[in-house]
């Protein structure tokens, strides 16, 4: 192993700086890009699925776009009658609206339902009520962002009913998750904003009791849990065919919407991988530079008997260590970068939470191209 130390000794310190800096910038920005796309892909799931509760099944309508689904409360209740393992069912009306030219999501939910979905407390004003048909509640963060307080009026225009709604803010809540960026209203008012009739909702969130098997709920809707991975979400889409309702199960809302236009969910995966591969192609040049910066020293070692392959293997090993060390750095930096960029969609901040698959895809792709770059340059190249 003496040769390993010899090669390490002859590598210039500037190589570490160049390789680490270039790879750090490349992986951070690539991670930020992919996690942004990932967040956008999962946005509707973040809105529909209760945050912090993994054991829930969401029932929605078979719609072509977010916020357009309609399901019948009666149809869901009929299916779930006597079902075991159900802790509670929360019906919600989700709508999109415009306040002062900005798009915002309006969530209609009963107070009991909201308490089942998330824990919150009243910071100012009144607690959420089910009866006030012109009242709305907002989070402390949204109140600050929109400059609203208890007693303020907001004029909300709904694209579904083509008429305005004047609402009064009745309470400011300490609430997290997606609810912190929405207008929370009584479910009947949300139906008016969405243009829905009584007995209709956008989604039903079926909360499972701790340890309950979700396949029991899925079976009630005649869908199999075999189509889902163990840790995948379960979204049941109901489609009315005449008097019959035919359900289908999906792992995310985006998958459902993509399926409606004839695209398989793997299309998104393919796009993600294509972006990772395309963007990290530049690492090939970093690999080239790692050899060229040390060409003279490595050439001397080669002349005294070190095979070129071994010298390059050491460089590739160093890059691997650098890439692995960059994993937490890139994920943290990309998070800070996106947070600093302050991007929002429908009022929700695009924070870009990095999942393990994205991080590994980025680093594997970056490493592969850097290693290829190391292999492509000859030590005695002029």
């Amino acid at each position: 192993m003496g040769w390993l130390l010899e090669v390490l000794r002859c590598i210039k310190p500037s190589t570490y700086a160049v390789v680490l800096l270039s790879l750090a910038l490349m992986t951070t920005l690539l991670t930020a890009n992919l996690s942004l796309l990932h967040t956008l892909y999962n946005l509707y799931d973040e809105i529909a699925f209760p945050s912090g509760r993994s054991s829930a099944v969401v029932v929605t309508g078979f719609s072509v776009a977010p916020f357009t689904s309609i399901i019948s409360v009666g149809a869901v209740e009929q299916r779930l009658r006597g079902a075991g393992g159900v802790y509670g069912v929360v019906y919600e009306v989700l709508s999109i609206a415009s306040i002062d030219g900005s798009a915002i999501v309006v969530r209609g939910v009963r107070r009991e339902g909201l308490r089942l979905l998330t824990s919150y407390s009243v910071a100012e004003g009144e607690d959420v009520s089910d009866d006030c048909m012109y009242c709305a509640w907002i989070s402390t963060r949204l109140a600050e962002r929109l400059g609203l307080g208890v007693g303020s009026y907001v004029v909300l225009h709904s694209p579904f009913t083509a008429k305005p709604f004047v609402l009064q803010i009745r309470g400011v809540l300490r609430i997290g998750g997606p609810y912190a960026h929405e207008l929370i209203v009584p479910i009947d008012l949300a139906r008016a904003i969405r243009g829905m009739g009584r007995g209709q909702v956008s989604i039903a969130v079926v909360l499972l009791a701790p340890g309950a098997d979700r396949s029991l709920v899925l079976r009630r809707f005649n869908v199999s849990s075999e189509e889902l991975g163990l840790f995948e979400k379960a979204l049941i889409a109901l489609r009315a065919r005449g008097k019959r309702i035919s359900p289908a199960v999906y792992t995310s809302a985006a998958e459902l919407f993509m399926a409606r236009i004839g695209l398989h969910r793997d299309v998104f995966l393919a796009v993600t991988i294509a972006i990772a591969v395309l963007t990290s192609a530049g690492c090939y040049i970093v690999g080239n530079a790692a050899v060229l910066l040390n060409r003279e020293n490595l050439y001397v070692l080669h002349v005294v008997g070190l095979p070129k392959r071994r010298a390059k293997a050491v460089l590739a090993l160093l890059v691997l260590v650098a890439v692995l060390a960059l994993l937490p750095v890139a994920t943290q930096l990309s998070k800070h970068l996106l947070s600093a960029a302050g991007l929002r969609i429908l009022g929700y901040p695009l924070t870009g939470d990095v999942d393990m698959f994205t991080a590994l895809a980025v680093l594997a792709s970056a490493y592969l191209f850097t290693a290829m770059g190391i292999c492509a340059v000859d030590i005695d190249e002029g």
Partner: protein
Amino acid sequence: MYTGRGGALRSLIGAAATLFIGIFRGGALAALLIAVVVPSATATVLLLGVEMLYIQGSAATEPYVERPSLVYSEALLDRARCVEVAVESAAVKSGGEVFEALVFLVGDFGRYAELSGLRIASSGGGRGSTAISVGWLLARGHGLEPGSPITICFGRHRCFSGYVTHVHRGDSYLGSAIIAAVPWQGAGVSGYLCRAGGNPAMESIVGSLGASTAAMMRLLALSTLLAYVPVQYLALGRALAMLGAEIGVLRSVGVPIRAIRIGFAAASAAACLLLTLYGVSIGALLTHLSAWLLRLLGVVIVEKPLPQPHVIASLAVLLTAAALAESLAVSRRIGGSPWGGS
């Protein structure tokens, strides 16, 4: 040997031309292709893709955007299609009961009813001239009907009394509201309810979504370009190393090192400009190819735009400026070891 001011310029142009040709003839091009074409093509795909999606989305929502709707406006848009309205929450007293309701105070009840399409369920029994219409949900919940006495108070001191003259229909929002032909001097929302030719809510939502997505894609494109800044620097260093023969010839014919350095920077910047344009074309081609592939899967893309001149100009300026600055830094190696930095 070049002498004088004209000679210096000629030597500079000569060096730049020689190195420019050298970049395109030799292996130096491969590194620059990766460093410039990949980010410019990726940025083009991102920017063009989002534009395509925006056009597609706008086309899909156009029928909804054009539908007439009612809007609140602080300013009077059109006297014929607007009616003055103020809205405020009030305490309502009737038959010994006190409850809260949203009250629409209108100057002209008839015009308001006509403009908003208010459906009256029952009317009559008004002993005064003030029209007061109560939503059917309120009427049912509190036992109100035409002729019922009613007092509406905004705060403690601003109250007016009258009789219910109408009960109107509507959804849970309108069905729980009161519409009264009373002048307003309160603290709620005041303005005009107007009938608009289109649906500004849909328009603003589509616009807001489009702006958010465009901002996101601009950030993605910019971060791709930024990620390639060090790569471009390394690629220029590699290009310089590959131009060793050309630089040797230039020095042997007496071209000053300073002229070779500036010539290298100019040649690199020009090469990067051309490669950026090439990258933009590749990006546009890839986007259109994807749209064509989607058609095979049954997704019809209505319009396939080409990159806007300002997008091409921005990419060209950013990448060429970066190449110029970096090649000036790299060119300091001329006269020493190509990777040695001296």
